[in-house]
């Protein structure tokens, strides 16, 4: 699997906060994604009903996943395709490499695939003599930079156009030096030209899948650029790399999910290209791939079924949770240290690489709840982050200071009278000490707070005391 810097989240976050260029690029996230989603959701009165429906479909599919997989496999085979099961990331990479070798592939074009990032397919193919070329504009840019995506639908959202220009000038040395690359449009045109050549000469095309349909053995990809389509139709073989949680029962079920996907992701009514692929080129077809393979990856997902984190498998990778997350807005995606950032990453990453490595991620939340509010399949993300925190505590993975603090705190909260007394005393003492300035610039045991901002001096009675007296007065 792709290596992780999730254990260094705190350090990563500090670096990200001090990175002026990153902060500049992140400005766009909150403004654009959030308002666009709102607008398009407001235009569809059935949007919330579709979210409920989508949640129910995914729940049903997961509860019957073994049977739908069998049905799906049967239809893929009937259409002339091949299904390969992969228990681990290693297995999936080996299957893909073996297929590439059998097909004599030297270059492989790739549609955007988060599962591809998860298993680190590019580095593996490259190390084994097969050249992978990312074709989604954002993925292409980060491949040039040897980076992970910083967002699951906008991989290069952490970059400014000036940075992209510098990368293109560094890599596209065959083009005139004095060309104008100052606008996104000219950058896109250049990438289009460079990649057109790659599309037409690639031996194998690898795409992910947004959905797999059990009814018909169909894989669906959703894109705006059309790169996924060129990736899968031009080479002699199309390999679909997808995780087992992508299964949905029927075409009708896929339509429910498609109606919430684009709206939640980019704020479009519908993405430009929604492509349903079933098997290889037919006898009478003049174009399309001659072979069609599906690599179905488990990699820890079957273990999530039936447990506290099963709901996470409903995720359709729209990115709405990170688009609405104040922590993501502040630090961007790379700080999370692995493939999946933001709230969905904070829940999924510990499941896939272990809470011992990813323990910081579910702690990097204010529990403001915006992620759950916008999730198209209503995943209780804050609740599951809390479950991870509990597990981290139970497995004694949290730091000693946190454990001592929690032990101290729980001693008081289990004795309400003592808690009320202690907080009343503390509030009064702090109010007295801070009566002149009205705030503290430094406070023992609260350096984490006062290093960045003042701590206000308490005023009046404690919250609980005020609550009590107001209730009595009513």
């Amino acid at each position, binding site marked *: 699997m792709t290596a992780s810097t999730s254990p260094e989240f705190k350090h990563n976050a500090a670096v990200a906060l001090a990175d002026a260029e990153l902060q500049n690029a992140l400005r766009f996230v909150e403004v654009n994604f959030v308002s666009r989603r709102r607008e398009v959701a407001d235009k569809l009165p059935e949007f919330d009903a579709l979210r409920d429906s989508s949640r129910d479909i995914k729940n049903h599919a997961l509860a019957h996943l073994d049977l739908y997989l069998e049905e799906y496999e049967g239809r893929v085979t009937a259409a002339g395709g091949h299904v390969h099961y992969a228990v681990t990331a290693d297995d999936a990479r080996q299957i893909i490499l073996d297929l590439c070798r059998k097909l004599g592939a030297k270059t492989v074009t790739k549609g955007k695939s988060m599962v591809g990032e998860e298993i680190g397919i590019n580095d593996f193919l490259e190390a084994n003599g097969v050249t992978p070329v990312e074709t989604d504009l954002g993925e292409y840019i980060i491949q040039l930079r040897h980076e992970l995506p910083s967002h699951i639908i906008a991989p290069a959202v952490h970059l400014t156009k000036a940075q992209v220009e510098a990368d293109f000038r560094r890599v596209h040395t065959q083009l005139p030096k004095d060309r104008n690359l100052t606008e*996104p449009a000219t950058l896109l045109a250049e990438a*289009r030209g460079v990649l057109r050549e790659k599309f037409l000469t690639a031996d194998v095309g690898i795409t992910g899948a947004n959905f797999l349909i059990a009814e018909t053995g169909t894989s669906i990809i959703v894109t705006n650029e059309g790169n996924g*389509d060129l990736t899968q139709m031009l080479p002699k073989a199309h390999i679909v790399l997808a995780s087992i949680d992508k299964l949905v029962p029927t075409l009708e079920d896929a339509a429910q999910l498609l109606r919430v996907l684009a709206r939640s992701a980019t704020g479009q009514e*519908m993405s*430009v290209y929604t492509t349903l692929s079933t098997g290889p080129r037919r006898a009478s077809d003049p174009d399309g791939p001659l072979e069609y393979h599906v690599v179905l990856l*488990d990699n820890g997902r079957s273990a999530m079924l039936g447990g506290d984190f099963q709901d996470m498998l409903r995720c359709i990778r729209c990115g709405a949770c990170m688009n609405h997350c104040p922590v993501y807005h502040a630090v961007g995606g790379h700080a999370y240290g692995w493939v999946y950032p933001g709230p969905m990453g904070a829940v999924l990453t510990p499941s896939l690489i272990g809470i011992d490595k990813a323990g910081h991620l579910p702690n990097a939340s204010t529990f403001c709840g915006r992620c759950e509010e916008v999730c198209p399949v209503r995943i209780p993300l804050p609740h599951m982050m809390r479950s991870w925190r509990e597990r981290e505590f139970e497995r004694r993975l949290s730091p000693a200071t946190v454990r001592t603090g929690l032990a101290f705190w729980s001693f008081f909260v289990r004795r309400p009278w003592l808690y009320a007394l202690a907080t009343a005393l503390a509030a009064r003492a702090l109010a007295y000490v801070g009566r002149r300035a009205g705030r503290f610039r430094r406070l023992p045991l609260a350096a984490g707070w006062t290093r960045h901002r003042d701590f206000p001096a308490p005023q009046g009675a404690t919250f609980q005391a005020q609550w009590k007296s107001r209730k009595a007065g009513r």
Partner: protein
Amino acid sequence: MEVAESGTMSARDQVLNAIRRSLGVTGREAPRRKEVADRLAGHPRGVVPARGQLAAQERLALFARMVEGAAGSIECVADGADVPVAVAEFLRKHNLPPAVRRGDDRMLASMPWERAATLDVTTGISDGKQLASVSHALAGVAETGTLILTSGPDNPTTLNFLPDNHIVVVEAKDVAGDYEAIWQRLRDAFGNRTMPRTVNMITGPSRSADIEQTLILGAHGPRRLHVIVVGEAV
């Protein structure tokens, strides 16, 4: 589960067994199997937005609005015989050479292309050298201004993506309200649980917003998508 964890168990069995272990099932439960079989056979429709549930005329008007909202252009002609001139006119308007490629589609083949005298019409797939193509869509969907195209010799999939300009002919009678109507049409045309190699749902021309979220048309697919609706809404 009957087989011990050993090197001999296939990856397929390992994955299915792991799923069944987690779900606490065997895979042989009759009620579960029935529920799956029923859903696959009955394919319930779920929530279908009221937006597309309109009489033919309004449905077509909504389709046109949504195509334009997705940055496509659209025009209506009375008859298939008017399409060649409309195609030539579109190319002229955009200063494009008078040449298009199409597939073997019967409706397209039967059009009087000689009426557009200077237009060079070739047939076959695209190898990336053509600037414009004409396809005949199976259907349109008013709900989002989406075109439905199926692969095959009639309308090769490469024509949908490689040329810079994609002109799509759709018959007014084939513009449906919602995706669900399309699924039924696919079942009628290709059989239950069977699909053509590719079904393309296309909503506007290709685009990317990957650089500073600035939306630009013409990423890897067509820069322009022009829809020609043929006939009256019925």
